C-alpha cells in the first residue's frame, strides 16, 4: 500500500473512507491509492460492505447508509459530486445491458454527448466493436448474445464513456471458468492500455492474483485486516498482518 500525502496525484485516492448504518460502522476506516494503470483488489467475505464501498466511490450509495471520507480522482475531490459528474465507470456481476436498446444503442448510451456528429459516433462504436472482435454485432439485440459477449459489450460501454477510473464489482463471478480467465485479461488489458486506475472488489483469490496489483483484505466486521503493497503472487501463503 502506497501511503499518499500529495494532493496533486494522478489516480484514484480514498482517504479515511468509512461506511456506517444508523451510526454503526460497517466498513473502514480505509485509505488507499490506485495509480493509473494499476489494479488494486479489495477482498472480503460477502456482506462486509465491498459493494457499498464501490457505490460510495461512484456516488450511488444507498441513502440508508452514511459514507464519510474523501475520494480524490486525479487530484480533484469528487466526494460531493453527482454520480454523473464523477467520470467513474463501474462493472457489476451482471452485465446490465439495457434490454430495450440494441448493442450499438447500449454503446451509444455510453458515448459522451460531446461527440455530436452521427457518423463520428457510429465510427467510434464500430471501431470499439471491431477491436473486440464483435464487429458483426452492431445491430443485435443483447438478449441474443452469449454471456461472454454481453460481458465484453458491457465493458466497451463503460470504456466508451471515457471514465477516469474503473470500478469492478465482481464482474467475473457469473462467468464459467474458461471464459472468466479470458474476460479478466480482456478487462485488465484495456484498463492498463487506457491507464485507468482500477479498483476491484471480489472474494475470488484468483481474481486478485490475475490483477497483479496490491491487495487489501477486509474481515466480516468491515475492518481492514491485511494489506500488501506487492502483488499477491510474490507473497507467502498467509497475508501479512498490519497494525491498523
Amino acid at each position, binding site marked *: 500500500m502506497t501511503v499518499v500525502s500529495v494532493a496533486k496525484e494522478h489516480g484514484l485516492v480514498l482517504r479515511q473512507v468509512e461506511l456506517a448504518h444508523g451510526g454503526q460502522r460497517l466498513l473502514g476506516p480505509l485509505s488507499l491509492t490506485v495509480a493509473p494503470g494499476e489494479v488494486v483488489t479489495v477482498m472480503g467475505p460477502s456482506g462486509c460492505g465491498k459493494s457499498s464501498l464501490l457505490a460510495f466511490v461512484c456516488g450511488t450509495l444507498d441513502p440508508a447508509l452514511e459514507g464519510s471520507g474523501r475520494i480524490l480522482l486525479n487530484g480533484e475531490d469528487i466526494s460531493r459530486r453527482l454520480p454523473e459528474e464523477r*467520470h467513474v*465507470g*463501474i462493472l457489476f456481476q451482471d452485465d*446490465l445491458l439495457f434490454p430495450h436498446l440494441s448493442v450499438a444503442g447500449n454503446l451509444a448510451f455510453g458515448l459522451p454527448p460531446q461527440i455530436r456528429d452521427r457518423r463520428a459516433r457510429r465510427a467510434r462504436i464500430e471501431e470499439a466493436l471491431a477491436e473486440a472482435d464483435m464487429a458483426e454485432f452492431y445491430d*443485435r439485440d443483447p438478449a441474443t448474445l452469449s454471456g461472454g459477449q454481453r460481458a465484453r459489450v458491457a465493458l466497451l460501454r463503460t470504456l466508451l464513456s471515457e471514465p477516469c477510473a474503473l470500478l469492478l464489482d465482481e464482474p467475473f463471478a457469473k462467468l464459467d471458468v474458461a471464459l472468466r480467465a479470458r474476460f479478466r485479461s480482456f478487462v485488465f488489458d484495456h484498463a492498463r492500455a487506457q491507464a485507468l486506475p482500477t479498483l476491484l472488489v471480489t472474494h475470488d483469490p484468483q481474481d486478485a492474483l490475475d490483477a497483479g496489483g496490491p491487495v487489501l483484505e477486509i474481515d466480516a466486521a468491515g475492518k481492514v485486516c491485511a494489506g500488501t503493497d506487492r502483488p499477491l503472487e510474490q507473497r507467502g501463503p498467509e497475508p501479512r498482518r498490519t497494525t491498523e
Partner: protein
Amino acid sequence: MTRRDLLAYLPGLTLLLFLAPVAAGLIGTWLPAFGYFPALEGHGFSLLPWQMLLAHPGLPESLRLTLLSGFLATLTSFLLTIVFLAACHGGRIILAIRGLMAPLLAVPHAAMALGLAFLIAPSGWLVRLVSPWATGWDLPPDVASLPDPNGLALTLGLVMKELPFLLLMTLSALEHSRADERLAIARSLGYGPVMAWMKTVLPAVYRQIRLPIYAVLAYSLSVVDMAMILAPLSPPPLAVQVFRWFNDPDLTMRFVAAAGAVLQLLVVVAAIALWRLGEILAARLGRAWIAGGRRGGKGRALRVLVKAAIQTLVVLAAAGLLAMALWSVTRRWRYPDALPSSLSLDIWSRLGNDIVWTTGTTLISGLAAAFIALALVLGCLENEQRRGLTISTRALWLLYAPLLVPQVAFLFGSQVLSIQIGIDATWIALVWSHLLFVLPYVFLSLEDSYRALDERYSRTALCLGASPNRVFWRVKLPMLLRPVLFATAVGFAVSVTQYLPTLFAGGGRFVTLTTEAVSLSAGGDRRVMGVFAFLQAALPLAAFAAALALPKRLARSRALREQRA
C-alpha cells in the same frame, strides 16, 4: 437544482390533490347534516335532519338491503378467492383464470350489472334459452328474479366485479409470501394441499390483502350504479336512497340527504370495525385450529366445486357482455326465442350523434385522468427512489382513503367546494373527481414493477454520465413500458366506470357512457341499453388490448430493423 426541488414537492402535492377534496367533502357533508348550510338558509345547528332521516319509513328496509348485499358479496368474494387459490395452487387453471380476470376487472360495474340483468330478468336470455320447451313458459314467468326482494341479484353482480379484484390482489400478494416453500414444508409434514395452504399461506397473505378487502366491503355497502340496475328500488339500498334525496327537487331534502350520507359513512366504518373484530376472532380460533394438527384430505371435491363456481361466474359475465352486444344489433327478438329473429344496425345509426358525444366525453375525461395520474405516480415513485424513501403502511392507508370512504358520503361536500372555487361543472372538476379514484389504482398497479426494476441499471447509466432525468426517460421508462402502459389502461378503465363523481362534479352537464347506460336502465329499450353498455365495456377492454399490443408491436418492428441491418 430547481427541477430536483419540484420533484420533492410532488408527493405532497399529490396527497393534497386527492385528499383535500375528500376531507373538504366530508366536512361539507357533515355541516348540512347538522343543519348548517347557509346557501339554503341553514344558519344554525340542529338535529332536525337526523329526526327526518330516522322517521323515514323505508330506512330499516334500506339498511337491511345494504348490509345483506354488502356483507354477503364481500364474504362470498373473499371465500371464493381463498378457497380457489388454496385448492388449485400451482395448477394451470390459476393462470387461465388470471388471464380472464384482468379483462373482467376492466369491465365497468354498470355494464356488468346490465349484462347480468339481460341474463336473469324474467324475460332474460337464460329463461329464453330454456323456454318454452323445458319450462312451458310461453310468457315471461311472474317471478321476482330481478330485482329480487333480498338484493341477491345485486350481490351476484358485486361478486362478479369484486372476485377479479380480490383474486388479482391475492395473486400478487402470493408472490411476496414464499408460498411454494411454505407449502412444500407443510406437505412434507403430511398436510393435504388445501389444509396446507389455509394453515401456512393464508396467514401470510391475509395481512397483505386486508386493505383490498376493506375496500371491497366499503364499495359493496355503498354502491349506487349497480344497485340502481339490480336492486329493489322501493325502498332502495341506503346509498341509492341518499343519492335520490340529494337530487330531490325539494331543496330542504338536501339536509336529510347529508344526514343519510353521514349514516352511510357510519355504516361503512362500523362494518369495517366488525370485519376487523371477525379477523381477530378468526385469528384466535385459527391458531388453535392450526395447533390442532389436522392434516386434511386431498381436497378433490372442494377443487371441483370451487372451479365450477368460478367458471360459472366467468361464463355469466361473458354471456352478459355477449347479450348486450347482441341486443345492440337486434331488430326483433320475440320472447321466448333463443336468438333474435332479425338483426340490424339501425339503432347504432339512429343513435350516432349521441354515441359520438358520450364516447368523446368518456374518452377525454378518461385519458386526461389516466395520464395526469400516471405523471403524478411516476413522479412520486421516482422521487422516492432518488431519495431512498420507502412508503410506510400508514401512507398506504392514505392512498386507500378514497376507496374506503363511500362516494356518496363526500361527493356532495366536494361539489359545494367546487362551486365555491368556481370550477363546478367544468372539465377541471370532472377530471379531478375521477382522479381521486384513478390515482390509487394507478399507483397500486405500478409501484411493484417500479420498485422491482434492478436499481443497478440506473446506477450504471449514472456512472456512464447520464443525468437522473436522462436515466428516467431513456432507461427506466422504456424498460417499464409494459407496466406503465398497463397502469394507464387501469386508470382509464377506472375513470370510465365512475358514475357518481361524473354526476356530482359534472353538475349534470357531462354525459358519459356510464351515466347514459345507468339512466337508460330504467327506460326499458334493451337495444339502446345494449349499445351504451356494450360501448362502456368495449372502451376499457380496447385500452387494455392496446396496452398489451403496443410493446409487442414495438418489439416486432425492432426485430425487423435488426433483420434488415
